[in-house]
């Protein structure tokens, strides 16, 4: 038994002095245009929308809202660049362009990290140490594939697809742009990319970098906007492939709307991933893994470990330690390096999360919320735990995309496999156990594209990512990520 902490309030009331990341070196323009054919151009729609810092609710900049005509212009530029330029560039030169982008991103990494935090609400330590380095490394990794594609697909002739349309979400803005653009370029395609409407800034900064890199005009086009802008890309007749990361609901709409066309499709969608704690797990590490699994990036993670399964005989201990750990999480200014939990990405998303918390209470689940000091302005949500939930509860079945964890217990391994797989999703899973044979039994039986054993939420450019079942199809990352952007000829 751990020694009882007697003067809890004394320990936990210690304040950290603020450790704010500087923002002086960061340049954000008042207004951003579309990046088409190598130039920043005003939208033909004539419309702009505000992008908000969710931590302060202040407007950061204005972003162009591309319409059908803007998308058409971008696709035409991409087609022209594909036909006249990019398909004629040698594979080794393609590699060198992509390497250049990786290096320029590394040089401006701190600026990108700060902008990412301002625009998305995620904590600076995460954007600085995870998002931005991974995004740079993704370009660096795929650059090297450009002149080695034949090795990836034995016995096949590898061809690019042409113009690819890519639509990305707001939870990892620059990282998702990198996941999409880097393999597409390496395989010889040209790109029209639409960032999420709440987080366009780092994609536009990437456009500046791409311009600086000397990449031929039109090879990458970035069209900002809302859902209608994305729909215009999906429905454009001259796009050869759609790559989408976002909700399962929209993914289904996309699959249906390209019916009858020859467009290729890869989808990286939602999840409700199981994080399973077996009774022989190293409990303290597992508790850290639970926290990282669900509270990392405010729970705005498609592969978040949002369904916790704890073996019955250790459930009390795990929950006690988990609650204590939740009490210690610091929630607040994302630019402060002490902050663990930043701001919810948008007011809309905060409303969704709060709706689900209300549903959970209505369904009769027991709620536990950490009660940290929360800034007065901005969109924040306290880390939340629901116990006494049933498999059929909506908070167990549906993706919440916020810092909300449901906890179920189990007795046998067979039981937890069935419960974990009882979901339309199949993106990721976590397993905590000290016994290799148990880990491999579970890892082979869980229907999930990524299995983290004794770890959680780890990503790497060489590691394929993507789901089973309604979490989508296709993989991003690694050699498998190339498949999404090539035609194979015998």
């Amino acid at each position, binding site marked *: 038994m751990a020694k009882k902490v007697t003067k809890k309030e004394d320990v936990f009331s210690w304040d950290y002095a603020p450790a704010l990341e500087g923002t002086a070196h960061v340049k954000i323009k008042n207004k951003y245009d579309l990046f088409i054919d190598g130039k920043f151009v005003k939208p033909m729609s004539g419309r702009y929308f505000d992008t908000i810092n969710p931590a302060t609710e202040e407007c950061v900049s204005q972003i162009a809202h591309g319409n059908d005509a803007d998308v058409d212009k971008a696709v035409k530029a991409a087609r022209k660049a594909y036909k006249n330029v990019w398909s004629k560039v040698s594979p080794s030169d393609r590699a060198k362009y992509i390497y250049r982008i990786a290096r320029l991103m590394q040089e401006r990494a701190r600026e990108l990290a700060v902008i990412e935090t301002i625009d998305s609400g995620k904590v600076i330590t995460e954007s600085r140490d995870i998002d931005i380095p991974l995004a740079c490394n993704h370009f660096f990794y795929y650059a090297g594939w450009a002149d080695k594609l034949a090795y990836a697909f034995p016995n096949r002739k590898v061809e690019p697809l042409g113009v690819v349309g890519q639509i990305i979400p707001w939870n990892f803005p620059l990282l998702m742009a990198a996941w999409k653009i880097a393999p597409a370029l390496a395989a010889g395609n040209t790109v029209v990319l639409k960032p999420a409407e709440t987080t366009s800034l780092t994609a536009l900064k990437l456009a500046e970098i791409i311009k600086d890199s000397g990449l031929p005009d039109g090879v990458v086009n970035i069209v900002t906007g809302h859902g209608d802008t994305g729909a215009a890309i999906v429905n454009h007749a001259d796009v050869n492939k759609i790559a989408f990361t976002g909700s399962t609901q929209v993914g289904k709409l996309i*699959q249906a709307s390209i*019916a*009858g066309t020859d467009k290729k499709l890869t989808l990286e*969608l939602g999840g409700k991933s199981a994080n399973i704690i077996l009774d022989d797990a190293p409990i303290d590490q597992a508790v850290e893994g639970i926290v990282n699994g669900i509270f990392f990036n405010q729970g705005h993670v498609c592969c978040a470990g949002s369904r916790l399964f704890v073996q019955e005989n250790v459930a009390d201990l795990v929950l006690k330690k988990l609650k204590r750990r939740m009490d210690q999480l610091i929630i607040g200014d994302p630019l402060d390096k002490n902050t663990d939990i930043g701001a919810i990405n948008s007011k809309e998303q905060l409303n969704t999360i709060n709706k689900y918390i209300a549903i959970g209470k209505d369904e009769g689940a027991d709620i536990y919320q950490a009660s940290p000091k929360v800034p007065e302005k901005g969109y924040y949500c306290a880390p939340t735990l629901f116990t006494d939930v049933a498999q059929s509860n909506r908070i167990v079945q549906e993706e919440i995309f916020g810092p909300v964890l449901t906890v179920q217990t189990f007795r046998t391994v067979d039981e937890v496999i069935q419960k974990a797989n009882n979901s339309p999703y199949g993106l990721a899973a976590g397993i905590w156990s000290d016994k290799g044979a148990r880990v491999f039994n579970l890892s082979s039986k869980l229907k999930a594209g990524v299995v*983290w054993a004794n*770890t959680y939420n*780890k990503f790497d450019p*060489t590691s394929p*990512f993507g789901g089973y079942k309604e979490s989508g199809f296709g993989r991003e990352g*690694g050699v498998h990520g190339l498949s999404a952007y090539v035609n194979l000829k015998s």
Partner: protein
Amino acid sequence: MKNLDVLKTYKIYIGGSFPRTESGRYYTPLNQKGEQLGNICQSSRKDVRNSVVAARKAFGGWSERTAFNRGQILYRIAEMLQGRKSQFIEELIFQGSSKTNAEKEVNRSIDRLVYYAGWCDKYMQILGSVNPVASSHFNFSIAEPTGVVGVVSDQTTSLIGLVSLIAPIIAGGNTCVVLASEGMPLCAVTFAEVLNASDVPGGVVNILTGSPSELIKPLTTHMDVNAMAYSGDSTEVKAELQQSSALNLKRISTYMKDWMKPNNQDLYLIADFQEIKTTWHPIENIGGSSSVY
């Protein structure tokens, strides 16, 4: 005196059994000479649903067979097909094929099964990878079967189209529900008998005769089917597959291939019905590399 022939009742194949369609319906396709091929089952959507249930039930066991064992069973199918070669040739000729082509088609089908039998314990090594992540983790990716696959078989051939899709799908550990050629269904029914005699567990392959135009919808809208394979070039069918598959995000693969060509068989047909699973585990780094040597 000549012995009176016993005529064959053509049945469908669900969960390792040979029922007639639950609907009681039949149709009577004709060959080019206008002769009746037989009273063939006009399968219903209920037969589709029963087949999906059988395929799902068989999936766990089949996918967990060792790769070696799956290879042996696929090879056994080839052996059984070889043994009944003359029956298939007769059926192909009856359905309009020349003797030479019929013999070629059966030989090709046998070879195709042998080809995929050999892949069973090898594709994992080509499709999988160990990934050199930039952190202290062991990380590897493996291929796992997608699940239950709906197959709309080539309508222009009786045997080779059927075999060319069934083989890579089950070699990869999936189970399937197959819609046979409507106009040339005889070999599909007889192939079911070959499967049944080949140690293929019941439910791994389910074969229905009837009208694809009627049966595609219940198959592709079924929420427990994970993927669809379509051999053909109808834009309407492709559109319907994509539209309905959006219900539960089925993976769709379409093929416009001349299956008689010897090179229309490859690893990528297996890969079309595989999911890539990536597993991470930390590596405890105690002691420097210098202490190892």
